[in-house]
């Protein structure tokens, strides 16, 4: 759809170009009959939406929609009313700025990136000011990545910016020179709604000021997400940034159209302007003819206006569509890589010799033809002669299944790491892995079908004495399931699990209020999103999911290659009482109740949760427990309440509650058995 909108935009842009030829005749007629004199007679160019002379404390907007500007400071201050400081200057009355208080045009200038506009004004900039904002639309730049647009002094140049998030998704331009100081100048900015630097221009005293384009990559909206927070144009200061201390300003004019050069001249230099329009058509020079033609297109021609308004609508709908597309952050090489230096004793601003990207040659020198960037680095990592990558990778997969790597220090193959317990095996696996084309699935299949992995984890007494850590793998591994596996196992056994792949994160059960201290709120999901696999559970590092964090899921402040496997009473509380597990037990309880043979129902539940058939002793205990619980729930229904109401999933109310609850207790007991929690 975006492509379609984009193509219609292109079409309109072409129409606009073609309109010139079509309008040639009309323009000539308009020129010949002297209509330009009449149409340029008004006090202001057309489409003016604000004119603030700033000659009195009223700060009146003298054109429609009228209203007043006001002085403000500090986004979060409960400021008593700030008063404007109107002074008399060589250029008449003007507003004197203090650098901290801004002039807020209130409703004027909440432009979108598809809206053309012009902002022109007279300003007197003090010489000593190197940095400071002249005007801006948006909340304090620092807090919101400069979303909006602004004109500012930046190290004695003018910076013109329009941004979704600066400096990437933005247009940023700089004037090539400084502007005159300590004297009145007229500055104007025009923008044509194209989201391009070429359509965003700067003018000094009615003449275009050449700029250097630093960034030309605006592709999303420039208004704040919350329209209630969206400020209008503000002059002279911004919160938490430098303003125009001792700057003077007057005659701010805002237009909802990108004015032509002739109109800019009208507001910036009325004398030169008058010199042009008072000429007779026969006296008009080639250059002046061009000025008038531009003016005609921009302000007179009905055709142009129609096309322009269509273009504006197309751009607005394009913007609205783009806005909804979620963005994914990626790493990208800069067009010109930034130079890097050794920093003297780590001090960020003291450069020593320059350094260049390379790899530790002692591992494997980087082939000369590889680019010195992330692509080259990736190629180097999987180079057939690379001694580490394949070994490190197979060692981690080995750890996943055996609980420890062939090299126990999975994160450290360096001189402080451990030696491999089976070096030849490690090499063989690594070579195999490389030669299989790095086939991860095949590698895992080989591991799990190996005789070594398939051994019972029951140790032989003699072996245990000789090799207590089972380094020599005389028996199979025994590992507690990970946080994700534990929950997914319960969900799968209960039939609740939702195996949908992909999509945004989900919000399963979590006690209320855990996100509050982080200044936000957890909105629990409903329906089948509650039962998505645990890898889809939302991640918030500042308030991690308690079910997962209790079972040693990493905190994700940095990468880890092996999780802890602790054993704590808090874990017992999770698998006993977390609604995720109680609900799963309830569903399994219903299944056992519905089974034709209740005993077989328990056996099936046991198999689903533990992957093995219960021994007669185990089954005997579970059936005995079931009977006791059943008798209890039968006489004291209120004891079953929690078991029957856990979770959102609907209950099968046709079943006998006491039976379901008794079977749910049995299921919960199995969930909490070592046989379910530990893979043996």
């Amino acid at each position, binding site marked *: 759809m975006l492509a379609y909108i984009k193509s219609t935009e292109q079409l309109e842009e072409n129409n606009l170009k073609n309109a010139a030829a079509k309008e040639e005749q009309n323009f000539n007629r308009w020129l010949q009959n002297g209509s330009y004199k009449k149409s340029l007679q008004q006090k202001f160019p057309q489409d003016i939406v604000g004119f603030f002379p700033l000659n009195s404390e009223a700060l009146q907007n003298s054109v429609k929609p009228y209203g007043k500007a006001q002085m403000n400071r500090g986004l979060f201050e409960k400021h008593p009313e700030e008063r404007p400081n109107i002074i008399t200057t060589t250029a008449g009355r003007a507003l004197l700025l203090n650098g901290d208080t801004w002039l807020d045009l209130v409703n004027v200038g909440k432009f979108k990136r598809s809206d053309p506009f012009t902002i022109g004004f007279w300003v007197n900039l003090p010489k000593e000011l190197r940095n400071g904002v002249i005007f801006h639309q948006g909340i304090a730049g620092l807090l919101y990545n400069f979303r909006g647009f602004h004109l500012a002094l930046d190290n004695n140049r003018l910076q013109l910016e329009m941004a979704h998030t600066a400096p990437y998704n933005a247009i940023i331009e700089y004037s090539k020179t400084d502007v005159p100081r300590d004297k009145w100048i007229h500055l104007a900015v025009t923008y044509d709604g194209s989201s391009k630097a070429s359509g965003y221009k700067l003018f000094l005293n009615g003449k275009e000021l050449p700029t250097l384009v630093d960034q030309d990559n605006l592709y999303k909206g420039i208004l704040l997400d919350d329209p209630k927070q969206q400020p209008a144009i503000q002059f002279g200061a911004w919160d938490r940034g430098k303003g125009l201390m001792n700057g003077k300003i007057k005659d701010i004019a805002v237009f909802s159209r990108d004015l032509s050069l002739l109109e800019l001249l009208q507001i910036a230099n009325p004398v030169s302007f008058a010199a042009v329009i008072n000429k007779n058509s026969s006296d008009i020079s080639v250059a002046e003819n061009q000025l008038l033609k531009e003016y005609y297109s921009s302000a007179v021609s009905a055709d142009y206006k129609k096309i322009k308004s269509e273009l504006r609508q197309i751009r607005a709908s394009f913007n609205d569509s783009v806005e909804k597309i979620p963005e994914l952050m990626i790493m990208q090489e800069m067009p010109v890589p930034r130079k890097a230096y050794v920093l003297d004793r780590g001090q960020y601003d003291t450069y020593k010799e320059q350094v260049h990207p390379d790899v530790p040659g002692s591992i494997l020198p980087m082939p000369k033809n590889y680019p010195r960037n992330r692509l080259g680095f990736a190629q180097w990592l999987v180079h057939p002669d690379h001694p580490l990558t394949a070994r490190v990778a197979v060692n981690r997969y080995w750890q996943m299944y055996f609980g420890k790597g062939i090299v126990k220090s999975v994160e450290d193959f360096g001189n402080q790491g451990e030696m491999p317990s089976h070096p030849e095996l490690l090499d063989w696996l690594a070579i195999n892995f490389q030669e299989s084309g790095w086939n991860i699935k095949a590698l895992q299949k080989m591991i799990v079908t190996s005789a070594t992995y398939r051994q019972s984890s029951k140790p032989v007494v003699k072996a245990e004495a000789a090799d207590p850590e089972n380094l020599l793998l005389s028996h199979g591994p025994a590992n507690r399931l990970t946080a994700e596996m534990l929950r997914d196992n319960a969900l799968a056994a209960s039939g609740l699990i939702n195996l949908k792949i992909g999509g945004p994160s989900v919000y399963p059960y979590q006690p209320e209020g855990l996100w509050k201290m982080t200044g936000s709120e957890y909105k629990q999901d409903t329906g089948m999103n509650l039962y998505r696999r645990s890898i889809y559970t939302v991640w918030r590092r500042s308030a991690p999911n308690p079910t997962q964090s209790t079972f040693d899921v990493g905190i994700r402040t940095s990468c880890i290659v092996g999780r802890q496997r602790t054993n704590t009473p808090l874990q017992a509380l999770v698998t006993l009482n977390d609604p995720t597990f109680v609900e799963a037990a309830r569903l399994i309880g219903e299944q056992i109740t519905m089974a034709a043979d209740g005993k077989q129902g328990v056996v099936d539940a046991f198999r689903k949760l533990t992957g093995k058939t219960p021994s007669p002793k185990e089954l005997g205990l579970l059936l005995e427990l079931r009977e006791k619980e059943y008798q209890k729930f039968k006489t004291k229904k209120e004891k079953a309440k*929690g078991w029957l109401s856990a979770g959102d999933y609907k209950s099968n109310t046709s079943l006998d509650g006491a039976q379901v609850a008794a079977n749910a207790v049995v299921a919960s007991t199995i969930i909490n058995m070592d046989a379910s929690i530990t893979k*043996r």
Partner: protein
Amino acid sequence: MRQHHHHEELNPFDKDLASVKQQLDRRTFLTKTSLGIGALALGSLLGTTKLFGKSSPASVEDEALSTSFPNFLPKAKRIVYLFQSGGPSQLDIFDYKPSLEKYQGQDLPSSVRKGQRLTGMSAGQATLPVASSLFKFQQYGECKAWVSELMPYTAEVADDLCFIKSMYTEAINHDPATTFFQTGNQIAGRPSIGAWMSYGLGSDNENLPTFIVLVSKNAGGQPLLARLWGNGFLPSKHQGVQFRSGKDPVLYLSNPEGYDGIDRREMLDYLKKLNQLQLDTYGDQEINTRISQYEMAYRMQTSVPEVMDLSDEPDWVFDLYGKDSRDPGTYAANCLMARRLLEKDVKFVQLYHQGWDQHNNLPGDIKTQCKNTDQATAALIKDLKQRGLLEDTLVVWGGEFGRTVYSQGKLTKDNYGRDHHPRCFTMWMAGAGVKPGFSYGETDDFGYNIVKDPVHVHDFHATLLHLFGIDHEKLIYKYQGRRFRLTDVSGKLVKDILT
């Protein structure tokens, strides 16, 4: 994974220390009995098995550690850290600067600022007008400590407090600064102080976590993050456990509705038998551990609600802590809760109270903050003292940084704001091993830079560990090829504040 057995023997150097430790244990016992039947009954109900952490030194179990702790006689057995999140203004509470009045409204002299950088939030201001405090200061106690009218209750216990007026940090914003204070590093991922202590010293209470966290409800302000009490790379049993007000003080403590303790007991008996069968088959001691963890979880279901239930506190105690202390989850109620946990020898109780970030409208906001905390803070000192606990309990009060002498935003007759200021701020400690009624360090006349005895965050950590008998250079954990310390490669003991 196999359970390593704890070795209780100590090396010969530590023999004397061992006898000291025994004496300490006896004293604790006596203190405990003075608390009455409640504590004893709870103790006997719960038996002697350890619930959390361990009591033996960390050295033998964790190969990364080669020293046994404590290294020397500890002064402190437990700590309550009253973390005032947001950065309380030292200039309006403790660091009295009378000469500021004559500079009121003037730009901060460059001779004071010395070209130092400002934080991004006020660096853009056209002027930096000096704002003297709106609050009246007075001297209190025999130590003649200056305290403003904002903290009348704290002023009453001034003779118990050891002020450090010359704290400084390197971080300028909340998250890194708080993370720095709690973990010794600005970047997240290192273990918190409490986790280090749990790791080094183990637990003195068999029935409650070693490291418990209480966060004031409804305080608002800068966010807190669970990793502030995280274990970092240490084993996760050392992480702080947050106790919350309400039905489930510890997550998932409550059984399904209607299913009571006796019912749970019955179910767990069967679970135990089933796990025992598994143990008989596989002989894996991890199963044994799991069996006992379930037993402990069961006991916690009684012990935690009991310690959280304030209904056995007499009225005069609530009066002492203020009326908010009857409202669970408030700072006042958490202070009272802290005392109950300390009585049970929980080693590290960490309180967090948000809302001290007064960039704007400071006078009004700080008044509320102080009103919500002052009485309970002071009550905790008094309460610990009267129970004989202050002598071996360390109380710490402070935030992550201080605030600027100049006004952020507009300075008016009755309003101003203050930006973050890492270069100096005030904290206080009280109790075990620190000089009471003492003030350490000095700032310049503008409260802008330190002129005497600076104390860095690492120095504070080194001193804290010292009070617990730990040489901060010896509490080490090797992780991913590097040996880590709470104090990283720095930290100097602040000897002058020690008794």
